[in-house]
């Protein structure tokens, strides 16, 4: 276990290092310069030189990279020109709102996808399985924003049940103050995620159904229900632990679209607004934070998996 841990942690550190290099490189290939963005197009050459000297932009690239890492290490993600705030404080304000959206969707998606995949595997190649497979196929092929639009057409424009706009307000408390407004954004993200998870769950359960231990369980007279809940569920659920970590970038991509569509002022919405305003410090800061969250999420998922299933450790050590 220790060897496995050391190997996975050092891999993650290497990945984080490369992410920081990529983001740093993109920052430097940007047209224009931080000085121009900060001081405006009419800045004199003297003012630009002074700004560059003050911020270390006139040093050699490797030195600049180290300075960048040093700033990151101190929690300084940069300063937003457009919002006139530090990226860190923007993040502190908006990250929790996105976490509510993504967290709720994840929990719901798992609660739906796990039983769905198991039922599909048990009723393999029957009508129910084909119907649910068709559902996940279409759900997977549906653009997230179009699904959201369809839900708005049905539940807001036609039935007037839920508002077409997410909860507004600066703090995360606003999201909880108006739970009705969260229904459609969460539903959109959940449906898309279920479409992905259920296919994995079905594949995993189908693999497990062919194993000897299932035959043993059947042979000793367990009913299908007992077999499914006691044996099949536990073993099939294991790969989902990894999937939860791996799917984080995909779900966050979905969150950007959902927040833009429902005008929900979370991290994705902020990122989208920042693209329109060419506010690069926000874009870069968020990219770094999201990538770090993904890498750490994957690491935790792998460790959880290795603790739950000793076979992984021995195979990969």
């Amino acid at each position, binding site marked *: 276990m220790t060897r496995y841990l050391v190997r996975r942690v050092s891999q993650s550190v290497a990945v984080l290092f*490369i992410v920081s290099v990529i983001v740093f490189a993109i920052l430097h290939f940007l047209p224009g310069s931080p000085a121009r963005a900060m001081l405006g197009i009419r800045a004199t050459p003297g003012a630009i030189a002074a700004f560059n000297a003050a911020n270390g932009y006139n040093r050699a690239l490797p030195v600049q990279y180290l300075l960048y890492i040093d700033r990151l290490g101190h929690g300084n993600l940069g300063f937003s020109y457009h919002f006139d705030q530090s990226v860190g404080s923007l993040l502190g304000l908006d990250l929790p709102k996105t976490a509510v959206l993504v967290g709720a969707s994840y929990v719901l998606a798992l609660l739906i996808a796990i039983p769905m995949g198991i039922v599909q595997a048990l009723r393999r190649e029957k009508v129910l399985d084909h119907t649910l497979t068709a559902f996940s196929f*279409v759900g997977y*092929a549906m653009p997230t924003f*179009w699904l959201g639009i369809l839900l708005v057409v049905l539940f807001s424009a036609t039935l007037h049940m839920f508002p077409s706009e997410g909860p507004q307000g600066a703090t995360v408390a606003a999201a909880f103050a108006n739970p009705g407004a969260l229904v459609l954004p969460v539903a959109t993200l959940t449906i898309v995620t279920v479409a992905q998870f259920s296919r994995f769950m079905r594949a995993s359960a189908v693999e497990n159904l062919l194993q000897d231990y299932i035959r043993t369980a059947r042979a000793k007279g367990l009913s299908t229900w007992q077999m499914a809940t006691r044996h099949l569920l536990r073993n099939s659920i294991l790969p989902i632990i990894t999937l939860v970590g791996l799917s984080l*970038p995909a779900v966050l991509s979905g969150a950007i*679209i959902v927040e833009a569509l429902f005008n929900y002022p979370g991290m994705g919405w902020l990122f989208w607004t920042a*693209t329109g305003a060419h506010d690069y410090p926000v874009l870069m800061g968020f990219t770094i934070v999201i990538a770090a969250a993904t890498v750490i999420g994957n690491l935790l998922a792998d460790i959880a998996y290795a603790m739950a299933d000793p076979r992984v450790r021995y195979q990969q050590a």
Partner: protein
Amino acid sequence: MTTTDVLDPSTPHLPGEPAAGTRSLRGAIRDFFRNRMGLIGVAAIVFMLLFSFVGPLLYPTDQIHPDLLRITRPPSAQFPLGTDQVGYNVLGRLMVAGQSSLEVGLAAAVIATLVGTIWGAVAGFVGGWVDSVMMRIVDALLAIPALLLVLLLTTILNPNIVMVIFVLGLISWLITARLVRGQVLVLRGLDFVQAARQFGERPWRIVTRHLVRNVIGLVVVQATFEVANAILLFAALSFLGLGPPPPAANWGGMLNDGLNYVFDGYWWLIYPAGICIVITVVAFNLIGDAIRNSFDVRLRTK
């Protein structure tokens, strides 16, 4: 769904396991044509291609000049799917939009497949620290949500169609690279390669010879999924307002325009383009699944 990222939509394969068996290509092709769902997918794609590329020849419409005297007209004999907010004929626009959506999807998948195959093959062949560095780069890019990368790159670069193809291609090769590397590693460890090495034959030559045959199924399957994913990403990009500007048309951009009329009941601005995207993406996924099943002997025995 917009991304793709790590989610290969159908992964019953464990890492390092040879997914595509050593099947004869002819047998695989024969099996593919026996697969009903795969044929439905092919038929749908042929239809979308004809609709987008031949359709405008049979049903020419002006998709360049707005006509503000006939905006948001409901469907009628003259305009089977109505007109949009600047007076374009929606049916004609669907065809023209399909051209760019399909072109972007196919071209991006070709770039992704080439880059991914070369990257994965080099990493697998060379091995050692080169392999480690190359695969950590893949991990790093996978850790950044695909949509984030696309948005970043399109704000920096100009959003014309060639640039979009380039950007989508350059972020979609990661899974292919992983699959090809895994396959190369498996082949390198096989007994006959080891034996050939003992006889002094250069192992990488044997591997290349067998690699082409073994990897082709895997790569083709992944490429079809990448077409579908690139079409979805392109639609998302256009929906967020970062696609090529009008009069250039694509399905995602049409939906972005339709969004303003959700509460007006202008359904012809909301349903048709979305349905086109779903049909195309489902069709490519069906084809991918069918090809994989036809190459994979292991799956069929179940």
